[in-house]
Every structure is written in C-alpha cells, then in structure tokens.
C-alpha cells in the first residue's frame, strides 16, 4: 500500500480541531521523507462555519490546492461536511467519516432539516466509505477534544506511513501532558477500522 503521492482532503466544522489533525499528518509525512504542502483558511471561516484543509504529499508537490475530483482520501469530521465536499474525491477514493452530527444554523433554527440520507448519498459516491464514531471513542477516553486524533488514527489505514511516524509527530507537536492521551486516541482510532475490513483498490 505504498503510495508515492496523494491528496488528502479534510473537512469539518470550525472548532473541531481539523487544524491540529492536519498539522500532525503533515509532520508525519515530513518525518517520513515526503514533500508536503497544505492549505487552509483562517479568520471568518473559523466561527463555526465549514472548514477544509487541502493536504498533498509526494516526492515533489507544486499546488497547495487539491482539484475537485482528485482527492485520494477524504477525512470528514462531521457527517454532512463529508457530503458537502464529496465532489473533491476521485473515482474510487476512500472516505473516513465521523458519524457525529453538528447542526448548521438553518437546521438548528428549524428552517431546514438535517439530511437523513447522508450515508446512502455518500455510498453512491464511493464504495470505500468508512463511517466511524470518533466522538464516542473520544468520550470513552474522557477527552472530547481528541476526536480529531481518533480520526487521524482511523484514516491512517489509507496512508503510506508507519504508526511510529504519527506517534513521533504527536510527541513533537503537543505539550508533554497531552501526548499520552493523544497517542491513546490515535491507537483507538486505528482500532476502529480493522486492516482486513479496509477495502482496497
């Protein structure tokens, strides 16, 4: 499953920790000898709005942006956000989706309904859909803020890096007191998907 290059699209809701997740992924790639670029938007977009990160790795990366229809892996921190950005996934690409639902303003105020058929619509995009309950895994560790790293753990099955690279990245990136719980979160996330059940192309 060694992939010399790839595009990873992360989507979530402002405040969910997509930034730290993408930092850890970038560090892990860099530590493993890849060229990496990533792009995201700060400011206005962080106030509870949709947030995305484009992460690209390979022997040499030019564009910091992923083209629609070219992402190899989509990691969604919120179910509906997976659907919003599903068009970035390439044919046959994989999705790791957190089953958590966060209501957008129009739904929270009763103007619209949260779509009930998200999973079905995602499955129509790819048969490599992996829905996980990262919130439950994080809550079971009594640290709701580790949802992001649980998802990195689950997504790691689809990336060409050894587990040690992520753990080294976590140790390098985080304050010492947070390393243990995040390494635990990474492993818990990785255990959510068994390697044998991961569909490969």
């Amino acid at each position, binding site marked *: 499953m*060694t992939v*010399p290059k790839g595009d990873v699209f992360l989507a979530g*809701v*402002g405040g969910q920790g997509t930034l730290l997740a993408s930092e850890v992924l*970038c*560090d892990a790639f*860099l*530590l*493993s*000898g*890849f*060229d*990496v*670029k*990533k*792009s*995201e*938007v*700060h*400011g*206005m*977009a*962080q*106030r*509870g*709005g*949709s947030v995305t990160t484009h992460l690209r790795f390979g*022997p*040499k*990366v*030019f*564009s*910091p*942006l992923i*083209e*629609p*229809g070219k992402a190899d892996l989509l990691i969604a921190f919120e179910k*509906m*956000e997976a*659907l*919003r*950005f*599903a*068009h970035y996934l390439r044919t046959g690409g994989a999705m790791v989706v957190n089953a958590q639902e966060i*209501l*957008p*303003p*129009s*739904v*929270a*105020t*009763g103007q*619209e*309904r*949260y*779509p009930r058929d998200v999973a079905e*619509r995602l499955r129509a*995009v790819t048969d490599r859909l992996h829905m996980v309950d990262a919130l439950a895994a994080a809550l079971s560790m009594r640290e*709701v803020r580790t949802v992001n790293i649980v998802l990195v753990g689950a997504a790691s099955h689809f990336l060409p890096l050894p587990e040690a690279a992520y753990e080294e990245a976590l140790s390098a990136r985080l304050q010492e007191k947070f390393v243990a719980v995040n390494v635990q979160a990474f492993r818990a996330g990785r255990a959510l998907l068994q390697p044998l059940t991961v569909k490969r192309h």
Partner: protein
Amino acid sequence: MSVLVKKEGIRLLSGNEAIARGAFEAGVKVASAYPGTPSTEILENFVRYEGVYAEWAPNEKVAVEVAIGASMGGVRALAAMKHVGVNVAADPIFTASYTGVRGGLVIVTADDPELHSSQNEQDNRHYAVAAKIPMLEPSDSFEAKEFTRLAFELSEKYDTPVFLRTTTRISHAKGVVRLGEPSGPAFPPGFTPDPAKWVMLPVNAKRRHVVVEERTKALREFAETWDGNRIEWGDRSLGIVTSGVSYQYVKEAFPDASVLKIGLAWPLPERLFREFAAGVSRVVVVEELDPHLETHVKALGIPAQGKELIPIVGELDPRIVRQAITGEAIPVRAPEPVPPRPPNLCPGCPHRGLFFALKKLKVTVTGDIGCSTLAALPPLGAMDSCICMGASIGNAHGMEKALGKDGAGKVVAVIGDSTFLHSGVTGLMNVVYNRGGSTTILLDNDITAMTGAQQNPATGKTLHGEPTRRTDLPALCRALGVEHVYTVDPHDMKRTEEVLRREVARPEPSVIITKAPCALLPDHRRKIRPVYEVIADLCTGCKACSRLGCPAIEWVPFTPEEAVDAGKKATQKGMARISPLLCDGCNQCPPLCKFQAILEIKS
C-alpha cells in the same frame, strides 16, 4: 521515493511563519502591524524569536510610520498588514518611497483573492506601480523566507522600501523551508540627520523624485538578471508567464510547458519578456485578479492571451488554469446540495444579545469590520451596512444628515473596541464637532476577536505579553465631547434594551459601551459557568429562543405523531433543546422564554 530526508534545518512552515523566520534571519529589530487575515500570524510568530521587538499598532498607518522611524534609526524594520490595510497606510508609504531608508524597510501586503475573510478583493500589485516601490512575490513558503531576507538586502542596496506581497494561499499554505543563520545590516544603529533625505518639504521632495526614477531604472536592470525571474524552458508550443501561487497551479496543470516565472512583480524585466516570447509559439499570462503582468507584456507589443481566458474574479486552481488554456471542459461531480454552514457568532458571544435588542428597535444599523459583521446573517439579520474599518460612525452621521428630521433616532453605528481605536475615534469626533445626534455602540469584548484574539490599546497587554496602560474608552469618548456615555452588560438583555431605547431617542450624540469579554478568551473559559436546559414539558415550540441564533439552541422537529408521543398537541411542530456541550451559560436566552422553560442545570 523521497527527495527530502529527515534532517536538521528543514521545517514545514506556513508562508506567514516563513516570513517571520526570514525577518528574524535578516536581523529585523522592530516590527509593527495591525492584525488582519491573512497577515496576522507574521507578527505572532516573529515575536517569539529572541532579541526582537514587535508590537500591535492601533492601525496600519501607525505600523508603517513606526517601521519608517526604526529604519531611520538604522535598524531593519518590518510592517505587515492585509491588503486593505495598505489603503490605510498608503499615505506614509508613498512618501517613504521618496525618502528611501537607512535600515532595510519591508512592508508585507497579504492579499485575499476569493475574499475568504475580507470586504473586497483588491490587487495590491497596483500599489507597487503607483508608489514606485519594488515588490517581491513568493510562490510558496520556501520562497517566502528567502524573498523576505532578500527584500531587506534590496531595500538597503537600492535605498527604497520593499513590498513583499502574499496571497491567502501563500500566507496560509504550509511548505518545506530550509532554515538559515541570522545576519543583519553591515552598519550599527544610529540616526544621522540628513534633511534633504528625511524632511519632505517640496524643495527636498522634488529632488527625491528624481532619485526615485533613477532607482526604478536600476531595479529594472536587477529584474533582468535576478534568478527569481527565470525562464524554465520546456515544450516551446506553449509559454506561460506567471507569478505567485499561480506558478504552482501552472506547474501542476502544464508540467511540460515553458514557463517564465516572475518573482519581482515590480519593476518588470522587459528584455526577459521579449526573450521568452521569441522562444515560444503561444504566450499566455496566468495570474490571479487583475491583468498586471499581462498589461506590461502587451505594452511591449507582445501578442499574448490573459484575462480573455483566465478569470479576473476569485482565486485560481490547477483545474481552472488547465480548463482555461486548453478550452476542454473537465467533467467533475456536482457538489451535493446540503444545508449551508456559514460562520456564526459563538455560543456565549456578548454581541448576540445586543443585536437581538437592535433588531427589536427596528433601527438602521451601520456596521463595521469584525466578528460583529456576522450579525448581518440570519436569524439576527441586524446590520444594514459594512464598508471598511471605522466606517460605521461616519456612515451613521452621513445618513442622519441626509435624512434630516426623518432620520432622528433611527440610525445607530456599531463598532468593536479594536476597530474603534483603529479608525473610529475620528468618526466620533466628527459627530460631536458637526452637531450630529447619532448613537454609537461600542462593543468592548476586551480583545481583537475576529483575527484570533490579539491585544489592542484597550486590553492592557502588549504583543510581548507585558502589562501596559489601557486606553480608557469611556474617558476617551468623553474627551471627544460626548456627554452621554453609558456602559452596560450585553448579557443583561433587559437593561441593554432599556438603555438602547433611551439613547437612540436622545437628540444628542451618545455612546453605549457593551462590556463583556469575548467568549473565546481563556480567562472566560476557565470560569465556572452555568449550563442551561430546556424543560421539555414546558416548551411550546414558540421559537422565541431560536431567534437568538445561538449555535447551542437546537430545534427538534416533530411529526404530529411524535408531538403526541411527547405529550404535546399534535399541532406543535417541534421543541427547542440546548446542547450542553455548546452552552456557554451566558444567560441571554432564559429571559426570552415566556414559559420559563429554560432553567439552569443543577448538578
């Protein structure tokens, strides 16, 4: 497989982190800025280096003036701002072009194509041409650091301020950077009086203009030979002239094409353009926003294509570039229709209660730049205009003068603490001076919030984290001549509305300061706060609380059967619920419920 091995001195940095590093390596001693997306992190990162001085200025004009002063004093100096900040700072910049520098002087302009977090999409390369100041334009983090170092060398060598222009996809994209050793200017600090250079009386400025024109000629020669402007020969049937992040999109979309990469956006290399055009059969200019390179290429009589193919609005990506040049439509899946998720005021935001009250008053609200601009979105929808930093107060005054008696008591300006200090103070001075009667609401949340919590003159802390004297906002307003200055807690909805009604009706200028900390501030988050819940049996589904637009208040829709099962009338369409994970305990919603259904969770 890999081109890079794990070794010392290699870092993954954002463009802004790379500029901060480059400034440190260049030996910058003084840096001044006003925060603004996408430029903010430059100073936040720079201040972490040993032995540097960095500050948040009240606005970009002051930041540039501080940097000019530091340069006069013989040290390397940096000022950083977002694109619209250059509009504010343009006055000193245009004349600093005439004076030149002593210590290297670099002005960073971070542009925002696609308006990710801005009120317009202006292309600041025009400023380089208009102010006759050279402009470097990096295309990734690696170049951002290298070009920053070079900018200081050029500044001293050519006796000129230098612009460094980024865009959002440079500032906020991360890439690999190779760290270098710190250096500095070849002379010690110190000011040498030289009125002919520093005192821009007409007699001196006239002579300096001649110097500026000579300097531009010399820089044009530099542009011809510097390897940051370079031809990458490939397939000669297509030649692309490009710069900045567009270069990366071009390399992605057309890896085999010949490329002329421009690293110095001004002045431009004429001989290089001609050499490139002579070597390829088709020239296309690929740049975001305005046809800057294209205009100058075409002015040389070179037949080229540009904006007839490449969009002038928004940012580019490899797909847009490929499709524009080949003319082939690239099929992609259409985005799935899902409910939108725009940014929103946070749970516990003190602004929410104020705008809720303003909506009830049915007044015209001239707004300003900041988080509060989000109140223009539904369900609050309580803002009628937003132009630029500080505009709200002048806008309200102008509208009041336009409407005469019909406008009395109907127009209110709303502005944040940092924005008021940036450029609202003079607007308020004008209201008093010119016998206006409008009401100004000053949202004092003790931080510059929208850009991610930066200190300002009213917060009592510097960028270095040192305690300092605060600007006393009520005293400042009184000193401007406003007699009626009142401070309210915006979480106290009843009191806030009372004061609003009273002051809006008053025919004299008044200021209402709504004082409560930003809900994201660490001191606030550490406080033990109540959590509220909706008592299901009492909720009638009237939606009075939903109209606040708080992200913590969720609507649970019912079918008639579900309503009956929940012990409600079949006609009740749903009920409200408060997410305990999101509730900030601000106490704005409980008084809105006529049925006393919102109570504090006791545990």
